[in-house]
């Protein structure tokens, strides 16, 4: 090979490397999921202070009230949880109503450090015999590198495996239409060995470990998860269940994930 050819080959390799780097842009996101147990065990200010300490980019919240009056959580009466947490954390807040409850609403929420481009509350299947209506809250978040990720917060049916399977099947169908990387976080009310998790999330990137997340009083099962889709776009930097945090009956779950978003 003459000198000229070697030079061309070297130049080509440099160009390929540069283009590969520029196309495969990755973003690191600190994602958190937290079931708040409708604020029965701690004030929203304490929860916000805790979230602030963790400095998450995205937070999926479950068991969020919106101006309800619960006997079991009198201190939270009339409070819009997502508004309170957004205000005290300096994040943007989105609420997804699941049901009417005690003069207000009960549902899920999302906090995002970055602006929300769009959001949609979607009802999950609830076939007969009907149980409590469940929802997924889908948001599209614009990251500082101008890429968009979809972030979903959900809370699945607690007592029926059949309904959970239908709900997960529905989620899988729904996310296939989403063109951006998807991060789903929430309380799935199913253990890792369950059929619905084993099969329903087999094509997802699992961004959590097997540490128990419920209950804080007597940890015995893992039911809170963070997943990414499609699998190949995600990498896990670290994950943690904070078993020292007893602000709810669930432990908060964190994952720092790498998203290949270009």
């Amino acid at each position, binding site marked *: 090979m003459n000198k000229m050819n070697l030079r061309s080959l070297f130049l080509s390799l440099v160009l390929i490397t540069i283009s590969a780097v520029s196309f495969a842009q990755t973003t690191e996101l600190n994602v958190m999921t937290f079931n708040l147990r409708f604020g029965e065990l701690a004030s929203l200010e304490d929860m916000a202070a805790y979230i602030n300490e963790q400095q998450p980019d995205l937070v999926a919240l479950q068991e969020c009230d919106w101006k309800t009056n619960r006997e079991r959580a009198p201190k939270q009466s*009339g409070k819009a949880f997502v*508004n309170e947490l*957004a205000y005290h954390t*300096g994040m943007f807040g989105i609420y997804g*109503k699941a049901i009417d409850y005690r003069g207000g609403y009960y549902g899920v929420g999302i906090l995002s450090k970055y*602006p929300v*481009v769009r*959001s949609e509350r979607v009802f999950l299947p609830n076939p007969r015999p009907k149980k409590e209506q469940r929802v997924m809250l889908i948001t*599209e978040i614009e990251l500082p590198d101008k890429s968009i990720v979809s972030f979903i917060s959900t809370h699945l049916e607690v007592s029926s495996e059949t309904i959970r399977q239908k709900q997960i099947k529905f989620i899988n169908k729904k996310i296939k239409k989403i063109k951006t990387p998807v991060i789903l976080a929430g309380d799935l009310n199913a253990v890792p060995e369950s059929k619905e998790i084993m099969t329903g999330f087999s094509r997802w990137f699992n961004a959590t470990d097997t540490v128990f997340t419920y209950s804080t009083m007597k940890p015995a099962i893992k039911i809170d998860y963070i997943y990414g889709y499609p699998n190949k776009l995600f990498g896990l930097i670290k994950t943690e269940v904070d078993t020292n945090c007893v602000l709810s009956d669930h432990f908060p779950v964190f994952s720092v994930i790498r998203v290949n978003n270009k």
Partner: protein
Amino acid sequence: MNRQKLKTILLISFCIAGFSFSCKDPVTVDEGYEAPNPPAEVNQRNLITVEFYSRLNEETLFQNNESELVVNRISSITSPLAYLFDRSDAVMGQTSPVVEIGWQTQTKSFFVQNTLSDSYVQGTGMIVRPIVNVFEGASIPDTLFIGGCTLMAPLGNPVTVTLMTCKLDHKMQFPALVNILGDGLNTNKLVIGTVKQHISEDMKHFLKHHLKYFRLSFHETGLEGRTHQLFILTPINFIGREVLSATVGTLPMYQCKIEYLKTLIY
């Protein structure tokens, strides 16, 4: 008639036909879409009120804790369908003005960004009272952000509308706007936003030739130092009837009244 005469007559006929054909050219020029005239009488029962707060220039809206008076107003005057806060910019990690207003008034807050950087986002805040299940939005980075809430407007008969906002600073945003709205102007999308003054005529011209079944109105405000103009873009079954200028404390506010015209006239 000999052959020569026939040839001459045919030649003249072709020339006249060709000439008249070329004379018809201006008639085929697309004059663009013109919305039919709305009814002269305003139906007060079908009026939607939206309060749009804006300095109509490049400055941020909230400069000296002016939000307190806005909070009082939102808490006491509940008739507007929504409140929009142009340039209620956000700093990442700090409570944005619109989140604070939402917190204080116990309403839903949304944010439509105009630009994005690592730590600072220019954008328009939106406050609504009812729970919103869909926040429509589209983002074409470096080109156009548009977003808004799908709400039930409590008119004579409740009507679902998607109230959106955007900020237009460059002509290159117009094709994106049309692209995003798509057939949206047939589906109750109402856009209240601002456009740089020197391109407002271009916007009018562009939409006239690239969009149908819409009504677009600009509103002069007489505000000193303004660089932008307020516009209302609706499907033809709506019309921006009136924009009243006011101030809330020191904040300029425009009360936009949009009428829902029941009958579709195409």
